[in-house]
Every structure is written in structure tokens, then in C-alpha cells.
């Protein structure tokens, strides 16, 4: 297609791999758009962006983006990202992960990344289900929702991921849905600007599994559901637990300043390594 007639995000994508593999109406594509939009607003240098992901539909996003990327093992993207950030703190390291990847198999890496307050931006695409493997319920599946492993409805209480990561020590936390792309872009902008562990939880649609198993047949049904059930944090604070049943609380959950892990590590090395040799963590890519 004539480049002048192209969508504004195509320039960041590996055109030869498009259209991407995601089902029609899957939220993953909308989250890609909002990421690029937020990145432009934050004036982040695209050349410095490194994307890291685990395993899952959502984790396939970095493979379509024209930047350095790492598609790692299930649940471990934050560990790989920690290594990339420490090896070269100049990198703008962004993790794309699913609710299964981040909160089930990778739950421990998630809370410890947050605890360390290492400067990563983690975008967790929470579609309340395991999409890639055929619709098993995940640690964020709402109570009573159906999945292939919960034919009678999920019995367990789901994680509130944003609250969990906030409690674990993240310095920026926000939750929005794919039906609020403007607010979501803005949150991604702030997350990228935050010098510390930033967590964006995006409630997203998996029409193929979550939708089909939960009587929302189209992506539009799912997005209307998210739009209708969303309630801002400020409004939610005035409501009782019963009134909040089934609601999606959106907004900013944390935004504070605290010492960042890579900085602390570099300072430690600077103070302890007194042999006049250049610092490994800073010199590897910067020369002498």
C-alpha cells in the first residue's frame, strides 16, 4: 500500500508479517496502538525500546514490532527484562505479558520485579483467560466465569492484579480497558516516564474463548461490557463491596517516586569498584 495512505502505527511494525495472527477483534491489536501512541506522547526514542514477552497470544506482540525484542519462556519475561535493563540501563525495556503469563506461572517474578522497583514498564494484557491454549481459566478469571477448565463456573476469587503489584512495591500502577484507548495511552505515557517499576493492567477482550464461553459472542459485545462495567477509582471509593460486584475499577492506583534498582546497583558498583576500570554496567555499550 502507498505509504501516504498507511495507518500511522504501521511504521513501527514489521509489515511483511502483517496481518498479525490475532483473531478478528482481539484486544491485543488495540493495545499495540495505545502503546505506540503513549510512546510518542512520552517522547521515548523508539531506537532504545526493547520489548520482552513470555508465552501466550499477548506475548506475540513484540514479534511484530520493528525493535529489539525477546520472546522468552512462559512466565519469565520480567526476569529476562531485568537482565537486559541491568546490562544496559539506557534501554527502555517494556514487557508484554498475559494474565496467565504474569500472574499464574510468572506470579513470583512479577511481585519481585515490583518489590525491587526496577525501571521496567510491564503491560499486562488481562483477558481473564488463557487464550493461546484454548480457554482455561486464569488467576484473574472472574468468579463464576466459564472456561474450558471451569465448565460450571470458576469457584476461586481472582487476583486484583493492580492492587497486588501496588502492594508489592511498584511505583506506577494503572488499570484501563481496551474500550478507553485515550486514557490507556495516557497511562502508558506516564508509565514510560516513571523511573521505576510501572505496571499497566489492560482489561482486554478474547472474543474467541472468553467471549464465546461467557455469552458475549462478538468483540463488540465484550467491549460494550467493559465500557458499561468500568467505574473510576474515585467513584468506586464511595461504593460498598456489594455495589462493586462485577465492576471493573479503572484509574491510577499508584504514582510515587522511590529509589530505582538499576541506579542503586550502579551507585554500589561505583562506590565499591575502585580499580579505575570502567564500570561494566555502563561501559559495555558506551565505550570508555
Amino acid at each position: 500500500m502507498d505509504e501516504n495512505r498507511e495507518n500511522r502505527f504501521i511504521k513501527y511494525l514489521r509489515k511483511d508479517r502483517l496481518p498479525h495472527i490475532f483473531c478478528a477483534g482481539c484486544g491485543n491489536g488495540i493495545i499495540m496502538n495505545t502503546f505506540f501512541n503513549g510512546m510518542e506522547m512520552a517522547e521515548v526514542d523508539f531506537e532504545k525500546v526493547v520489548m520482552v514477552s513470555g508465552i501466550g497470544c499477548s506475548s506475540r506482540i513484540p514479534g511484530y514490532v520493528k525493535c529489539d525484542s525477546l520472546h522468552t519462556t512462559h512466565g519469565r519475561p520480567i526476569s529476562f527484562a531485568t537482565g537486559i535493563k541491568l546490562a544496559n540501563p539506557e534501554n527502555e525495556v517494556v514487557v508484554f505479558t498475559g494474565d496467565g503469563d504474569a500472574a499464574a506461572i510468572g506470579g513470583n517474578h512479577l511481585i519481585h520485579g515490583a518489590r525491587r522497583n526496577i525501571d521496567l514498564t510491564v503491560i499486562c494484557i488481562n483477558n481473564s483467560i488463557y487464550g493461546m491454549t484454548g480457554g482455561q481459566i486464569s488467576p484473574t478469571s472472574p468468579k463464576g466465569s466459564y472456561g474450558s477448565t471451569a465448565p460450571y463456573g470458576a469457584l476461586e476469587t481472582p487476583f486484583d492484579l493492580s492492587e497486588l503489584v501496588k502492594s508489592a512495591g511498584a511505583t506506577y500502577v494503572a488499570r484501563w480497558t481496551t474500550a478507553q484507548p485515550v486514557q490507556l495511552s495516557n497511562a502508558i505515557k506516564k508509565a514510560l516516564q516513571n523511573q521505576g517499576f510501572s505496571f499497566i493492567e489492560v482489561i482486554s477482550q478474547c472474543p474467541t474463548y472468553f467471549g464465546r464461553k461467557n455469552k458475549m459472542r462478538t468483540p463488540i459485545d465484550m467491549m460494550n461490557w467493559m465500557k458499561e462495567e468500568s467505574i473510576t477509582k474515585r467513584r468506586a471509593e464511595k461504593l460498598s463491596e456489594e455495589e462493586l460486584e462485577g465492576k471493573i475499577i479503572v484509574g491510577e492506583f499508584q504514582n510515587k517516586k522511590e529509589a530505582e534498582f538499576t541506579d542503586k546497583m550502579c551507585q554500589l558498583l561505583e562506590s565499591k569498584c575502585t580499580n579505575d576500570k570502567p564500570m561494566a554496567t555502563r561501559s559495555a555499550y558506551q565505550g570508555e
Partner: protein
Amino acid sequence: MVDFMITIDKNLCKGCNICTEFCPRKVYQKSGVLNKKGVHVPGHEDEDKCTQCQLCVMMCPDQAIKVDEKVDEKDEN
């Protein structure tokens, strides 16, 4: 005269109709036109109603939509 021009890349569109549903001005319509992959690519005959808010560009999961200003050639000079 300046107005707007919408392009949908037929090779990228998967026919989810998110644009049809969420455009605040109802510029898009479901269509019977099939692309090569058997996808119904929405129509946009009502382009004149477009306010260029760019919401459809943000919401199209397949990066298929471009909305921009159309400069009428007759008025260009």
C-alpha cells in the same frame, strides 16, 4: 475545500466491525463486500460526517484505518 478522507487497507481488515460500532459519528457501515480472504470490509460512504477524532484509528486492532485531510484538487491552486 478541505474535508476528510478515510482509507481501509483491505488486506489488513479482519471485519471485526469495532470501527462500525464505536465511531461516534457512525461513519462506517457493515458491508456485503468481501475481500480476498472472505472478510466483510466496512464501508465509509458517510465520510462527510467524520470529525477526524481518530478514535477509529486507535481502536482498529489491525492497523487498517487511516483518516486524514483531503485537499480538493480543484481548490489547490
